[in-house]
């Protein structure tokens, strides 16, 4: 029983990372129609930046600063490389970010080495909270809480702030938003930065759990695509649900058949596409 709980909890944590990553991807995809293949690269960048500044700022300082730096880098990339591609076939932005992903992965290997680097989590966070539930270390609980806070903050921003409302409106009909006097270029830029911030945060958090090596982003990227499809394209709550679901499903599968723990996500995706093509929470008419 404990073991099952352990795997479910573990799955929930991985699922939370998938969700965090997938939410950023979704934001960018919905507003700009860009599949950001470099999202995993940004995640790795967030993790490595946090690792690099940690000696100066401490763990919590790094957690605060690294995602912001990553997001700023994202703003620059969007401005100079991705903006020229809006309005062209989505093929091109996909190819460009794909190339960026290559450069990011190779770059982090060049700067920080191919081996995993020691990513120190404060000692008081890494001890178990109770002897019975040994897997409940402070860090894991801390992560879940922080991811929940981040997701809550994101939904708050999207629902109640002016920027968020514009992003949501732009997702529906960018042309009208533009006509109403919103600077769409800045909107897309900020939205991209917001998405990258989520990736950077996910990276800074995940490195403490998964270990930090150049491929950390790629291994989280693919499940994030699955999360978006399962949850329903165009729906951020759906993306969140999708991430958590496939995380828990693959956690549970680890109990029964460890070697199928990745394949299960794709089975789920296949089933969703078969039974409910628009995804669990996807809106009618947005199948295309």
């Amino acid at each position, binding site marked *: 029983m404990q073991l099952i709980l352990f795997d479910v909890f573990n799955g929930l944590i991985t699922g939370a990372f998938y969700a965090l990553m997938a939410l950023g991807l979704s934001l960018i995809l919905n507003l700009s129609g860009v599949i950001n*293949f470099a999202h995993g690269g940004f995640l790795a960048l967030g993790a490595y930046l946090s690792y690099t500044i940690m000696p100066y700022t401490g763990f919590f300082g790094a957690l605060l600063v690294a995602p912001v730096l990553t997001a700023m880098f994202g703003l620059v990339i969007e401005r100079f490389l991705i903006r020229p591609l809006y309005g062209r076939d989505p093929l091109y932005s996909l190819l460009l970010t794909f190339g960026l992903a290559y450069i990011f992965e190779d770059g982090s290997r060049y700067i920080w080495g191919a081996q995993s680097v020691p990513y120190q989590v404060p000692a008081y966070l890494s001890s178990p909270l109770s002897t019975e539930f040994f897997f409940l270390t402070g860090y894991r609980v801390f992560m879940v809480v922080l991811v929940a806070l981040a997701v809550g903050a994101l939904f708050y921003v999207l629902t109640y702030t002016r920027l968020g409302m514009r992003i949501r409106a732009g997702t529906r009909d960018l042309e009208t938003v533009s006509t109403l006097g919103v600077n769409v270029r800045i909107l897309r830029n900020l939205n991209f930065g917001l998405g990258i911030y989520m990736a950077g945060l996910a990276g800074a958090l995940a490195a403490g759990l998964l270990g930090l090596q150049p491929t950390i982003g790629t291994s989280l990227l693919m499940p994030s695509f699955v999360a978006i499809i399962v949850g329903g394209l165009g729906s951020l709550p759906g993306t969140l649900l999708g991430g958590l679901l496939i995380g828990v499903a693959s956690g549970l599968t680890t109990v029964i058949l460890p070697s199928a723990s*990745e394949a299960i996500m794709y089975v789920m995706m296949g089933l969703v596409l078969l039974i409910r093509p628009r995804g669990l929470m996807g809106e009618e008419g947005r199948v295309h």
Partner: protein
Amino acid sequence: MNNSLKQPANIVVWVVLLTMPYWMGFVGGYTELATRILVMALGAMALNFLLGFTGVLSFGHAAFFGLGAYGAAMTIKYIAPSSMLALFIGVLVGAIAGALIGALIVKRRGVYFAMTTIAFGQVFYFIAFRWNTVTGGDDGLNGWHREPINLGFTQLDIYHNPMLFYYFVLVIFAVSVGIMALLLNSPFGRTLLAIRENERRARFLGIEIERHIWMSFMVSCVFMALAGGLYALLNNFTDPRALRFDLSGNFVIMAVMGGMRSFWGPLVGAAIFVALQDVVSSHTENWMSVIGVVFVLVVLFFPRGILGLTRKANNS
């Protein structure tokens, strides 16, 4: 496609391909590199059947390439030592997977189609990676090699003679490319072009869009799997990297770099890409960055591809 330049261009392409093993050495290459170019070109042209001539972006085609490779490798290792049977089984496996996945995703368009193919592309990677006992896991599937082909009256020893293997691949390449060209020039191919140009109009004309895209997807998967099977035979080996998403991206960039609206574009793109990869990876460990920069530069400065440039010049 029907410009007056078509005939001379065809002749140039075939002369180059027929003589490639003979001059490859003078430009610093080797016969295996020539064969690899041919195999990757077949893959890129198969992808381009869908991408360039139907207007549908699949970013997960390495799955079918890899299925062809594993199908061929496992046939020789576990079933029977026959190269032809291996290729046949490889194609069959790829076709079945293509039919199933195609049916699931055919209603999606644009970015969403691409994203679904990316996600599906990884299924087979994980299976190959995890199912150690059968697929060899991360180490790949070795302990087998391509088998000589028995024609009855004589035997083609494609295993020991790399030159002979090149021409064996060239014959298969020629037949495949010929079939694709015939298909594109048939009413079916014209219908695909119509869908690419204006899907809504094609639908109003009564064309069954989904069925045509599914068929185009199938054609693409079949030749992709064939290329994968040849790739396994070429290396006498296959591993999960033959199925991974980065290979899918590489095929797309080959097609785009060469010019996805022209028939021979992907061949040109594949030749450049494979040669570049060969040269760069022998000079620096950071070849991934170089390839990444190529992606970025092609997208920003040569979105129409190399043959797209000449075509533009010809038209004006």
